[in-house]
């Protein structure tokens, strides 16, 4: 395995007295797709939010593409430029059109001229198959469309790693598919992805590795085939027996 693009070592985080993340070690290779699953409250979201410093942590180190992110969060801006994130609740900017949502960061963070930024944005909107909605406001679109815009918005910054925080949990079943299809396309293009999700089908089909978390620690990590066919830890077996009925 080559030098990992994301390397988490000895990560510990507390919310006040509550120990949310305990000794997390995880290395993600370039182009690898990792699905993180586990019961709610197990720290999955907190873990990937630490990777782009939306959450601070007390111990350990995260290295993203050679940029160090320690507990003092010194290189926050540099890391965030390399990492794209998609949220459960989309978090599109409601007062801006879809196109402006996608050009805002390139213009204001990367100082790209407006024309070029719009051309890039349109390219990514085409890739998520909604170029004709570019001048609508987010509030005028369906949930699935909004989440695809959110993916396009993250991609306009040319991230090296994409984080997905339960991207389909707020969608109805019909829309889940259109978002998952977009993510599968992205995976096929070789994007490094860390996905927190309960979509086990997606995990089976796309992931290189499935990481199971409970009580703030990584319980088991394995290829999807091994993970689903022969879980080794008792907690994993219980979890899988409950969700795969």
């Amino acid at each position, binding site marked *: 395995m080559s030098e990992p693009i994301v390397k988490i070592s000895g990560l510990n985080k507390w919310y006040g007295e509550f120990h949310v993340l305990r000794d997390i070690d995880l290395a993600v290779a370039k182009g690898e797709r990792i699905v993180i699953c586990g019961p709610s409250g197990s720290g999955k979201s907190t873990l990937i939010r630490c990777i782009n410093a939306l959450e601070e942590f007390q111990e350990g180190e995260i290295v993203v593409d050679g940029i160090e992110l320690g507990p003092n969060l010194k290189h926050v801006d540099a890391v965030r430029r390399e990492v794209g994130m998609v949220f459960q609740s989309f978090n599109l900017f409601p007062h801006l059109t879809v196109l402006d949502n996608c050009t805002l960061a390139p213009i204001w963070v990367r100082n790209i001229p407006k024309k070029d930024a719009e051309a890039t944005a349109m390219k990514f909107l085409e890739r998520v198959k909604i170029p004709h909605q570019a001048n609508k406001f987010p*509030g005028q679109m369906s949930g699935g469309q909004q989440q695809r815009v959110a993916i396009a918005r993250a991609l306009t910054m040319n991230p090296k790693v994409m984080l997905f925080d339960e991207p389909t949990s707020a969608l109805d079943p019909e829309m889940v598919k259109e978002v998952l299809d977009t993510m599968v396309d992205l995976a096929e293009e070789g994007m490094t992805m860390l996905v927190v999700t309960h979509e086990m089908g997606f995990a089976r089909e796309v992931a290189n590795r499935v990481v199971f978390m409970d009580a703030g620690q990584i319980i088991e990590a394995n290829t999807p085939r091994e993970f689903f066919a022969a879980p080794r830890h008792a907690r994993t077996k219980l979890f899988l027996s409950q969700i795969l009925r």
Partner: protein
Amino acid sequence: MTDISSSSFVRQDLLAERPAPIKTTGFIGLVRTRLFNSPTNILLTIVGALLLWFTVIPSVRFLIVDAVWSGQDRTACLAENAGFAVGACWPYIQAKLPQLIYGFYPEAERWRVDLTMLLAVVLLLPLLVPRLPAKGLNAGLFFVAFPVVAFFLLHGGGIKGFGLSWTAGLLQLFDESIIGAGQALLSLSKTSAIAPLLWVVGSLIVLVGTAISWLIFPLTWLRDYVQVMGQPVWADFGITAAIVSLIAFFLAGGIRTGGRALASSIAIFIAIAIVIKLMGLDRGGLPIVTTNLWGGLLVTLVVSVTGIVTSLPIGIALALGRRSTIPLIRIFSIAFIEFWRGVPLITVLFFATYMLPLFLPGNFTVDGLVRALIGIALFTGAYQAENVRGGLAAIPRGQGEAAAALGLSWWKTTSLIVLPQALRHVIPNLVNSFISLFKDTSLVSIVALFDLLGSLRASFSDPKWSTPSTAFTGFAFAGIIYFIFCFGMSRYSLFVERRLNAHRRS
């Protein structure tokens, strides 16, 4: 009648259109369906009609039907001369109109007020119409250039120097106060128990002050050199223009990309030069009209426009400060807001006018109108801060997180994502405060500033126009003027709200 009780049915001939049995459209329809359609509504309609009858009819009678429209003095508005019970006495307003608009502003100089108001309208109207272009330039002219021009137009006076003299003067004042503090400590050290400590600190401060005075010596020397030249203002102006333009040129990237900045800087200075030349600021400017002569609508507008324009930035800064994670900023903001909200505006104005001069050093005076302006701006700013905070609280945390995840800094997240949404949420509250500020300006009359209402009350004492209906006429007139401004703001805010909240209509 077709029998459709059997399960199958086929229509034989189509039914023709026919009018409704009772009319539901037009006036009759309105009366029937909305005004008299139930006992409660009949009652409400009658009460409403009576209310209108007892308010509208007397008002119209007073303002129009029974009004006296022409005359030279009070005799025209007396019942025995007019031959009927006199309502409004409009010739009185006509005679006092100049006083109501300008106060005691000298008659020969009133064109300056007219010109200022004209400039304000010419600059403000295009700013309010969204379709017109060049909003940036327009806003710059209205918010930056216009206040300066308006000051020299309304107040008069000229300038003795320009940027160079001002910078030198300011630095010198700063330096002198440092040296002064040091010397005070030194003289204190002669008598104090901790004399050596005071002496050391005092000498250190004096040393620093002297060092600064050497540091700024080239600047003060240049200033003194320029001041003895034939054209001190223009020489100073030229030097300032050259220095600022060069700084702009190099900050914008030098030869490669600085051309634009250089050109716009030079254009701005040429515009300033034209203004200085036109108004003769280098030759003493227009005759000075001190602010205690200002009055009437002029004062009302100056106070309210300044208050409105300055209170919003103050409010935004305080609201952001109150949500800051830095304790010092947060505590300062909270203390500031709670202090100004806890004190009545009248107290603020009284304090600013009569108490503040007692606390300031002897040679340091601030104009009375400016004191009132600052008081009102800070007072309204505290209220606006709470309005804005309400808007900020309505923005979900995810918005800031999404912006941060895209790599936007705190400032960019706040100014591009959070504030635009927050302010849209609270447009009604903000305008509410503006309207209340506009009407509260009448409180400045208690600190010897004669705004519209103050001028009106002053005019009541004129025996030439003393009639039974003078006061009513005056207040009716003032009420109409206030209403026009406040209603205008209210309607415009509705328009802005609809326009900016386009994204919330799906």
